């Protein structure tokens, strides 16, 4: 195949063709069998051209994408596909952001654990003194396997219903002597300003009570 001059500064031919000399500096030579593109900086010597397509956003920012296309129509079609894809990604991004707003606000199911060794005073088994948002405590589970027939304990549940307000006793239960089960569960209510569960030994020997608190919290 002979070299064909398509435009003033644009030539096409095969990779086996000897590239023309004496042409206008800046001309482009396209190898139709390899798709490689060359350019000449002096009209005689040819170097591989670094072809990039600049995708310009509406706000003026842009990204240069390397690429080789057989024809200008093919390049435009590819660019059209990319633009369409970008539009789709904008919609996807909007949807992801909307989902993220919801998931970021979801409480994470969490637990912690402590051991209360009773001493005759009212002791805290679990407390959140000032939740950072509407708080969802679920339960405090108290292991009473160390508790014997000679002990008496009182478990109390408190909430605040105003910021920095007084603790309001919500529930109280006294266990006298042996407890049939190995574990007591104190179920808790949603809360905004503070929640705590306490244990107090009323009679008997000081014992260890392992307490697990389970709650949902953000973040």
């Amino acid at each position: 195949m002979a070299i064909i001059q398509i435009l003033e500064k644009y030539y096409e031919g095969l990779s086996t063709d000897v590239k023309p000399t004496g042409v206008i500096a800046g001309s482009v030579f396209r190898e139709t069998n390899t798709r490689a593109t060359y350019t000449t900086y002096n009209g005689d010597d040819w170097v591989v051209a670094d072809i990039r397509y600049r995708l310009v956003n509406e706000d003026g920012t842009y990204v240069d994408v390397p690429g080789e296309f057989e024809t200008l129509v093919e390049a435009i079609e590819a660019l059209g596909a990319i633009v369409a894809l970008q539009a789709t990604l904008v919609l996807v991004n909007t949807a992801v952001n909307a989902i993220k707003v919801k998931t970021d606000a979801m409480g994470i199911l969490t637990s912690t654990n402590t051991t209360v060794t009773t001493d005759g005073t009212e002791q805290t088994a679990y407390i959140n003194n000032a939740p950072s948002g509407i708080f969802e405590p679920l339960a405090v589970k108290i292991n009473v396997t160390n508790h014997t027939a000679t002990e008496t304990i009182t478990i109390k549940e408190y909430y605040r219903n105003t910021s920095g307000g007084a603790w309001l006793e919500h529930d109280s239960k006294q266990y006298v002597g042996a407890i049939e089960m190995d574990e007591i569960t104190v179920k808790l209510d949603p809360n905004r300003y503070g929640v705590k569960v306490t244990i107090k030994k009323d009679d008997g020997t000081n014992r260890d009570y392992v307490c697990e608190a389970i709650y949902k919290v953000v973040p």
Partner: protein
Amino acid sequence: MTIHYDDIGINEDILLDLPMTEGIGTILHDVATPARLVTLVAAPTWTALASGLMTLNFDGATQYGQCLNANCADLKFTAGDYSILCAFNWASGGDDSAIIMGRYQLDVGGWELYLYTTGALTLRHHHAGTLVPLVTGNPRSAAYSMGWAYNTNWVMGLSRVGSDVVMYRNGEPLTMFASVGGVIDPEATTYDLVIGARFTKDDNFIKNMLYRPRIIGAALTAAQHKTAYELIKGWL
């Protein structure tokens, strides 16, 4: 739908997590699986930020937190990767060197993370005698980053990967400076975990705010550090 604590990527290998939800008292409850207790000494002040997020404020002179050696033996990191996360806002006027947290004995064993007045944040490993290769006789190896200015809320993260350490500020990786040979595995220590003070608990106190120290027994990825920042940033 319920999001489970242990299913969140950054929590998969978590060893210590102190979210400071108590808001009162002298005990910090760990919500990671070990559920250890950290005791506050000299009563640092519970302080809620404008967002309602509860944090601790240290006086830079006497206040710190500690977890006794018996309850934190797994935080030795004498081998393997690990990560640390927390948020802080430190202030001038205290000790030049301010410990964020550490479990170490100087020039013997363990690790420490500390700030210096130059704005440097350093993770330092301690070594017994001449155990550090390349720099014979050096009892410490370390890596640090710069730009930790006073009076600014920072979300800090680091991942120790082999002899490398990468630190993250507000979710972005930082330029690191390290000892010759990198950060070498520290020797063992039997000292307590300290938060906000030197291993001897009498110096290098941090001054101002500290929030949610976390230690993970694996190297968090850059994406996970970014996620950790994204989850906190709206509250600081």
